């Protein structure tokens, strides 16, 4: 029944998104007419250049560099964040003690730490990974921690009654019960890890999309800046749209 009701609604939602994209492109065009070539490149030219970039040999090695660092950072942020979040969520004392520290760390502008990371790790992939991780890990920890801490006590009591081992408790009770919230944390962590990696490439590296972007900024090549930004935006929006769909489904099931 709900599938029948859902479908037209989903189509309406999709059409709305398309309309919104069309509206944004229109605003972009109007801004271009207003601001001129020095500041903006028009939508059509930008999209054409972005497609050209996708076909150029120069582009893909940089994409590879970015996504290699991003991938490693993402794995560390997710695994580390989940582990820390589980530990802090299941132990009240630790959770209470360290949550404010985590929140404080989350709000400190990490851009300011960048020189420190460069001094410790030097320019290169290690610094990018570390910068990605310190951006992405905190939301994963905080969401996991809160998700685990708010599991219904009756579930944990039942697990104890059944004499589940620690591993069984984790995989059959804690993870399934906390999954929707944990996934939200992973979704936020994904975005922040990506921006951490890109920023690190912008401020100090010799390859990658962030480096390309910074070079374009240095040359004031407006078309390249906007095409690169467009590609990053499209990637981020598509990945997040996918995550949002899964996120909503998980929350509905719970």
């Amino acid at each position: 029944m709900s599938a029948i009701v859902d479908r037209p609604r989903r189509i309406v939602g999709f059409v709305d998104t398309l309309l919104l994209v069309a509206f944004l492109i229109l605003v972009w065009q109007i801004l271009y007419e207003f601001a001129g070539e020095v500041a903006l490149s028009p939508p059509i030219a930008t999209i054409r250049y972005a497609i050209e970039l996708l076909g150029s040999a120069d582009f893909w090695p940089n994409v590879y560099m970015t996504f290699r660092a991003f991938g490693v950072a993402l794995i560390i942020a997710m695994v580390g964040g989940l582990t820390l979040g589980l530990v802090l969520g299941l132990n009240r004392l630790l959770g209470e003690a360290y949550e404010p520290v985590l929140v404080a760390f989350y709000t400190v502008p990490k851009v300011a730490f960048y020189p420190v990371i460069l001094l410790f790790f030097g320019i290169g992939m290690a610094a990018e990974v570390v910068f990605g991780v310190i951006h992405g890990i905190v939301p994963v920890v905080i969401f996991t921690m809160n998700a685990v801490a708010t599991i219904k006590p009756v579930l944990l009591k039942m697990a104890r009654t059944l004499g589940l081992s620690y591993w069984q408790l984790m995989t059959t009770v804690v993870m399934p019960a906390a999954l929707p919230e944990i996934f939200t944390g992973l979704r936020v962590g994904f975005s922040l890890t990506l921006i951490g990696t890109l920023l690190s490439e912008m401020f100090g590296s010799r390859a990658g999309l962030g480096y390309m972007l910074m070079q374009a900024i240095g040359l004031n090549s407006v078309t390249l800046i906007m095409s690169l930004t467009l590609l990053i935006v499209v990637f981020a929006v598509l990945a997040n749209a996918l995550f949002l769909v899964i996120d909503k489904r998980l929350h509905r099931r719970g």
Partner: protein
Amino acid sequence: MRPALLLRLATVLGFVVLLEILCRLGVIPNFTMIPPTTMALGLYRLLISGALLPDLETTLSGVAIAVTAAILIGFLAGALLHAVPRLRRALDPFFASYYAVPVWAFYPLFIVLFGLNDIPKVIIGFLYAVVAMIVNTLNGLDRVPPVLRKMARTHQMGRGATVLFIILPSAAPHIFTGVKLAIAYAFIGVVGSEFILASAGIGYQISFAYNNFDNVILYSLILFIILFVSTVNLFLYSWERSILQRRGGR
């Protein structure tokens, strides 16, 4: 509460002491990091000499303008979007992926449009902060229990009165979260912009010190940013606590 507080303080203190020892022993060389006591001393001298004041003023006034604009506009936009669910649903994936996009890519554009002054970095700070405010306003409005709205209708409250006495107080905790994030993000936006390209400001001084291998100034400034943002957070946190307690706590 007390053992948790104790543990927290002990950990932070232990970390600082450990850094101090590692730096003093030379395990962490001085050109990588200077001992925390030297940072504190450096910061003290910097603040006493007053050399930092103009930069401090540019950065903080920039953040203040960006935060104020982001809170006002973000709140209004959130309230407006809440009233138009269709537009909001269409915008959802954009909001969700907003913080994955390096807003600084648009920094050169603003410099071309407005010149190399304080306006571009204020705009970046605003752009960074405003979406957090919008999203949290929406969150807060979503979580107003329908029964409260119904009660307002039963008591025949006007629209203005409903908003003022029912909806705003009920959504306040989430809106407060938005304000906290807006302050943090505006800081990130402004300091980051100064870091990339500026002629004054804390972020500019950090990048200047880094490029000149002046580790004392570099770490003094980083310490300053950590202390300043933590103080602001602590203040907001205790304020939030007192608000929640007055409403019967949670």
